[in-house]
């Protein structure tokens, strides 16, 4: 193991040994599989210590969490004290082949530290929650093993130093999601859903492999040309970033194609528009899985990929340089498309699933419009409140609606029965909707704000429309679940509705877990809805608190910019630009271009190059980029910009904009209108059964068409299964059959007939005349040689040996004669 020198002094033990963070759960995975089933439940006084290996998983996640927290603290310490922070890299050679060296390693920067902490934290809470939720499940041990490996996969990915390692973690997650979604595979629908998830993501993964190959080979060429072989291999993420930002014109089209291919992978993994169909089906898994999958792991992997090698996309798709780009379009379409679908769902988890898709659209759109920091911050905040929402949904199903996820049939009026769950749900819903001073607001509003300020007006509008839709569908879900009159199981009626088609998931979820519950304490009497036990309540409550608190890391409205300071790459020496706060900068209602160029002129005076004294604290500034005439100038990502000696340009400049309440108003108005409209509709429709609204879809052709269109999910599943799969596979099969019957059979039959004719002729002429003669002749020849050679096969070993040596001697003699 040879550790290559990192570019700067390693600032602490936790950062130095960050590789332990994914390693611990990976080892725990093996341990759980090996011994998990042999660990029995232990009773200590009133408490039961669960066996089955679940505690190994939790212990490993806690270990990772402690290490990640230590790493985060050390990173914060490091980032605070430096105005230029290169990623701290450490690599070990994994394998070598044909001159290409593949390493495993760790790349520590703000983004990876943030993600490590997030993943470890969410995984810990989800595993604790699962203790209760999956109690008595028949594959309890395997569940915890897969969950642990899943977290490990995500941790490997976020820590990845090079693309190969990133793919490794990426695929680990793909495999584990397959195992976990199909956890209750006895039900056909579940195993189909897991297959669908796996194949859809695999479709995108082709892009990842192709994109990595394109990018890495060109980066390797660039590295060789610039004499950086000692520092990087072509797969290194930092090298790829530097290569993309170097602005070498010969690689222009390569970068574009690489970016497109890699983005297709992100589309598949992060459930962006055309490939989002797997995500709602993934709800077939147990709720903790959905929660983990949809908050911090798996689906954010695609967004993370884009954020990780942002320079490739920034240069390849010319973000900030053109009016529209691929990423922003896909993200924007996803926001609207998924949010609309959330309105017609009756399954509470599917509402949340589409909400996740929509929020991922926000992140992608943010990255597409150059809002790197807000998009990454949205990953952070979204993880907390979305995890909380899913766990609340699980709590409702676990204790309130008898394992059904159907909001219309089995829920309603649960607010009074489950107060803790209700409060947590409302808090995280408000965070999701973007109500001011909740975590989601800070990040989402920043994305919308940046879209406007960077002159992406279409996407600004989409962001606001998305905020409206988000509030409206969350209000609907809240109303149906917690308010109104109790229905079905929530009212204490326990009807067996498992034959029902779309209760299938809920039923599967429930009954696989339920059948084996021997000591399901509170279900013995079927006492109706009640609050969940503390193992479920505690994680939810913690997450609800964080749904408010997590946003305070980067609250422009309160003038807090910690997240930005710690996570945003400081790719070049940064001087405090005091000009950012002055009037006119980044205020887009007026023509922003002049405003920006003014700012640029000011910052040009300060000019990059000289670094402030080591250890000097930097105040939150907006240092990294300037816009002038719609283009980024002066810094990384600009043609012709050469970073100072010893520094590397590994991330593009990020343009920041000053927060103003005036700019936040449109989105706030959208939230308020969404809330009021949706609440009014819910009361009118679901409670008072307003005659004008009820049955509207039957009476009004337009409404019916719209509803049907949404109910069938834009017919995308039809497109994939009926048109593409059947359209490609079935005609292909039919065509092959026709070819088989008519052409191949014809050839075979014809060949047969011809063969017989030829055979008859051949028999007479060739066989009888020629061949027989040859055969008879060869027989005689063989007999002759046989009798001549017979004496040599005496069976005497010494004779054989003599022959062998004689032959060798003869050969040696010939060799000597020929060579001399």
């Amino acid at each position: 193991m040879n550790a290559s020198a990192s570019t700067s002094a390693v600032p602490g033990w936790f950062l130095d040994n960050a590789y332990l963070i994914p390693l611990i759960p990976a080892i725990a995975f093996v341990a759980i599989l090996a011994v998990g089933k042999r660990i029995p439940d232990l009773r200590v006084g009133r408490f039961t210590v669960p066996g089955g290996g679940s505690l190994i998983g939790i212990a490993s996640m806690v270990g990772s969490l402690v290490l990640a927290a230590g790493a985060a603290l050390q990173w914060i310490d490091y980032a605070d004290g430096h105005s230029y922070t290169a990623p701290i890299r450490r690599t070990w050679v994994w394998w070598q082949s044909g001159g290409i060296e593949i390493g495993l390693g760790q790349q520590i920067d703000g983004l990876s530290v943030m993600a490590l902490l997030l993943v470890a934290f969410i995984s810990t809470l989800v595993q604790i929650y699962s203790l209760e939720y999956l109690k008595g499940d028949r594959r309890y041990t395997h569940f915890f093993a897969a969950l642990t490996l899943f977290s490990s996969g995500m941790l490997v990915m976020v820590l990845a130093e090079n693309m190969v390692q990133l793919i490794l973690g990426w695929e680990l997650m793909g495999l584990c999601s397959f195992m976990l979604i199909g956890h209750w595979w006895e039900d056909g629908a579940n195993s189909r859903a897991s297959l669908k998830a796996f194949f859809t993501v695999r479709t995108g993964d082709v892009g990842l492999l192709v994109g990595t190959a394109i990018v890495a080979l060109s980066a390797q060429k660039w590295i060789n040309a610039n004499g950086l072989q000692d520092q990087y291999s072509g797969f290194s993420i930092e090298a790829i970033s530097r290569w993309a930002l170097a602005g070498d014109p010969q690689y222009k089209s390569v970068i574009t194609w690489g970016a497109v291919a890699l983005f297709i992978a992100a589309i598949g993994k992060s459930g962006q528009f055309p490939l989002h169909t797997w995500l709602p089906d993934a709800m077939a898994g147990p709720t903790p899985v959905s929660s983990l999958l949809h908050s911090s792991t798996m689906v954010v992997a695609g967004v993370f990929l884009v954020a990780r090698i942002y320079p490739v996309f920034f240069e390849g798709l010319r973000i900030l340089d053109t009016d529209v780009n691929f990423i922003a379009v896909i993200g924007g379409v996803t926001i609207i498309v998924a949010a609309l679908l959330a309105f017609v769902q009756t399954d509470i988890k599917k509402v949340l699933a589409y909400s996740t898709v929509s929020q991922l659209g926000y992140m992608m759109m943010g990255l597409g419009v150059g809002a790197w920091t807000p998009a990454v911050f949205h990953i952070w905040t979204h993880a907390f409140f979305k995890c909380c929402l899913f766990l609340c949904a699980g709590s409702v199903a676990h204790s309130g609606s008898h394992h059904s996820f159907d909001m219309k049939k089995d829920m309603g009026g649960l607010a009074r029965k489950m107060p803790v769950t209700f409060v947590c749900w409302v808090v995280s819903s408000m965070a999701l909707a973007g109500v001011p001073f909740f975590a989601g607001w800070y990040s989402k509003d920043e994305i919308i704000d940046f879209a406007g300020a960077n002159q992406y007006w279409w996407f600004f509008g989409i962001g606001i429309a998305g905020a409206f839709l988000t509030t409206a569908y969350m209000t609907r879900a809240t109303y149906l679940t917690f308010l109104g009159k109790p229905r079905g199981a929530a009212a204490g009626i326990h009807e067996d509705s498992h034959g029902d088609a779309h209760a299938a998931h809920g039923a599967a979820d429930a009954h696989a877990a339920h059948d084996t519950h021997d000591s399901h304490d509170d279900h013995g009497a079927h006492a109706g809805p009640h609050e969940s036990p503390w193992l479920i309540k505690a994680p939810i409550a913690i997450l609800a608190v964080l749904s408010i608190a997590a946003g305070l890391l980067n609250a422009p409205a309160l003038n807090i910019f910690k997240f930005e300071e710690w996570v945003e790459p400081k790719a070049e020496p940064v001087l405090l630009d005091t000009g950012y706060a002055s009037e006119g900068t980044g205020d887009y209602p007026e023509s922003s271009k002049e405003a920006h160029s003014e700012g640029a002129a000011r910052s040009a005076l300060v000019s990059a190059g000289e670094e402030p004294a080591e250890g000097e604290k930097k105040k939150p500034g907006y240092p990294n980029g300037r816009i002038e005439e719609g283009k980024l100038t002066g810094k990384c990502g600009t043609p012709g910009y050469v970073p100072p000696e010893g520094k590397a340009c590994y991330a593009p400049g990020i343009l920041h904009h000053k927060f103003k309440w005036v700019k936040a108003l449109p989105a706030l108005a959208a939230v308020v209108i969404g809330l009021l409209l949706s609440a009014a509709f819910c009361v009118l429709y679901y409670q008072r059964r307003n005659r004008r609204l009820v049955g509207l879809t039957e009476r009004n052709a337009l409404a019916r068409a719209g509803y049907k269109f949404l109910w069938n999910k834009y017919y995308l599943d039809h497109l994939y299964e009926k048109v593409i799969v059947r359209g490609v596979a079935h005609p292909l099969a039919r065509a092959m059959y026709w070819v088989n019957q008519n052409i191949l059979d014809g050839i075979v039959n014809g060949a047969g007939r011809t063969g017989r004719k030829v055979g008859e002729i051949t028999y007479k002429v060739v066989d009888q005349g020629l061949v027989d003669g040859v055969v008879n002749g060869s027989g005689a020849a063989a007999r002759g040689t046989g009798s001549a050679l017979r004496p040599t096969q005496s069976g005497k070993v010494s004779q054989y040996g003599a022959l062998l040596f004689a032959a060798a001697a003869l050969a040696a003699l010939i060799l000597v004669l020929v060579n001399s």
Partner: protein
Amino acid sequence: MLVNQFLLLGAVLFAIGVYGVIARKNAVLVLMSIELILNAVNMNLIAFALRNGGDAAGHTFALYIIAVAAAEVGVGLALVLLVYRNRRSIALDELSEMKG
């Protein structure tokens, strides 16, 4: 260096070994002769290694051959033992049939 002398010694050993393999009837003696041949080869390897300035490859091969030879003698003696048990004789010229 004395390379020629080593090579000559190797050639003599080789010739003795070949004579033993061909002319001897006793299986154990044949095995011993094979050992001589192998050691003749070893001698050559070492000699040429010396001529190339103490090339480690030659020594490595020689050591390798010694190890293989040990294994070969083990197998060979086991065969001889089995033959002796079956036929009460280890004269090679009596083993001319292709059947046990």
